[in-house]
């Protein structure tokens, strides 16, 4: 039976470790400084990808334009593929009027 006991103990330890790891992140954290920074400069975006406007400032960029800003942007940036089109709530749609000419 030692195998079964060992396994159950190890699995329990694993589950506890994982739970503990997952719990650490749920505690209140230290983002107050960053929040102050954002408020002070009115920042709107994360400085993750600085290749182009639509990746550097995805929330401020046009809804459709790829490769518009960076000089020498001959290809789609890998990071560009991360940035999915913004869900369409605020896009206006063309109305098609059907009828005879």
């Amino acid at each position, binding site marked *: *039976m030692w*195998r*079964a006991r060992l*396994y*159950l103990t190890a*699995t329990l330890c*694993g*589950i506890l*470790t*994982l739970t503990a*790891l*997952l719990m*650490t*992140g*749920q505690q209140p*954290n*230290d*983002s107050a*400084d*960053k*929040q*102050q*920074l*954002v408020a*002070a*400069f*009115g*920042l*709107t*975006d*994360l*400085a*993750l*990808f*600085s*290749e*182009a*406007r639509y990746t*550097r*400032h*995805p*929330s*401020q*960029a*046009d809804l459709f*334009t790829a490769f*518009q*800003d*960076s*000089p020498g942007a001959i290809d789609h*940036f*890998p*990071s560009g*593929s*991360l*940035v*999915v089109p*913004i*869900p369409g709530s*605020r896009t206006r749609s063309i109305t098609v009027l059907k009828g005879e000419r």
Partner: protein
Amino acid sequence: MNRQLKLLEYALAGLTRRKGKNVALLLVYAFTIAALGSVLFLTDALRSEARQTLDHAPEMVVQRISAGRHELIPRSYATTIAQLPGVRQATPRVWGYYYDALVRANFTLMGVTEPETQIKDLQGQLPAADNECAVGIGIADIFGATIGDSLVLVDAHGKNRVFAISGIFSAHSALLTHDLILMPEPALRAFFNLDPTVATDIAVSIANPREITTLAKKVRYHLPDTRPISRSEILHTYDSIFNWRSGMMFAVSVAALIAFCILAWDKATGISADEKREIGILKAVGWNTGDVMAIKFWEGLILSLSAFLIGTIAAWLHVFVLGAPALTPILKGWSVLFPPFSLQPVTDPYQILVLAFLTIAPYLACTLIPAWKTAVTAPEQAMRS
């Protein structure tokens, strides 16, 4: 209980008998889960970082759209917006990009209007004089500059301008400030050669968050060539950027899932003659189908649960302790200025549960179904295989 313990013991003995194969399987499986888990943890943490910090972004940003593109906005628009009831303040802002051909990176230049503000994440001072600037740690690092050194930038007239670094943002805030160069607003206007009557956009402060949508409509009504972007839209953007379906993350997850399916398929179709024979023997000496399924269930659970635990813990350490070294190259692309990750280990328990379910359940099914098929045949026939 005791019976299950005995069956568990038997299942463990069975797994150790085929040690090499099972350890290899466990490792491949755990690796797959670690890859999936890393993607999950990283995107989750980025999303929560965005949600937390950008929650203090301006309530609304108003851009001008001309010929379908973001254009400079007349400062007079700010006066119009400020007069709308409910608007606390409308501040024209100046910011833009600067491409450095040497390091091949885009910097973000921003104008500062209130240099007295105390910023905790800034070492040194905000730029007060026209020839001063404050920079993000990424820029300081890439040029090896410290406070007191100067940056030479080429302005809109093609002239070299010297800016002394008065402050550097701490690494703690790199995710927000990595590529920033702050200058006093008049200096930035001169640098970009901007007309004094225009600004890049207008940050609008609104007292009552519930009025944002209405005010956005009003802005559009009074100034039809603008595009108001509310804070909730900013947050929404970051919610949808880092989700399962987004480009590269999707590719990684799909690759991992395919690897996993191959694994599971091999397992499901490849119940070996040895295993069949063993099931036949167990049935012949009096085990019923339930007992056989119990040990097969244990076998599957031991492998998949262990792989899940190992994989998820490894993913956590990979992302939050090591800073996701295996994923950043994918995120980074050709980016020269990529902020170091010191992400807060925020995870979504729901997603972990989904991951657990998606990895454990199919594997269990792949173990149980072929075993069950063998277990319900006559033992004499099963033993012959």
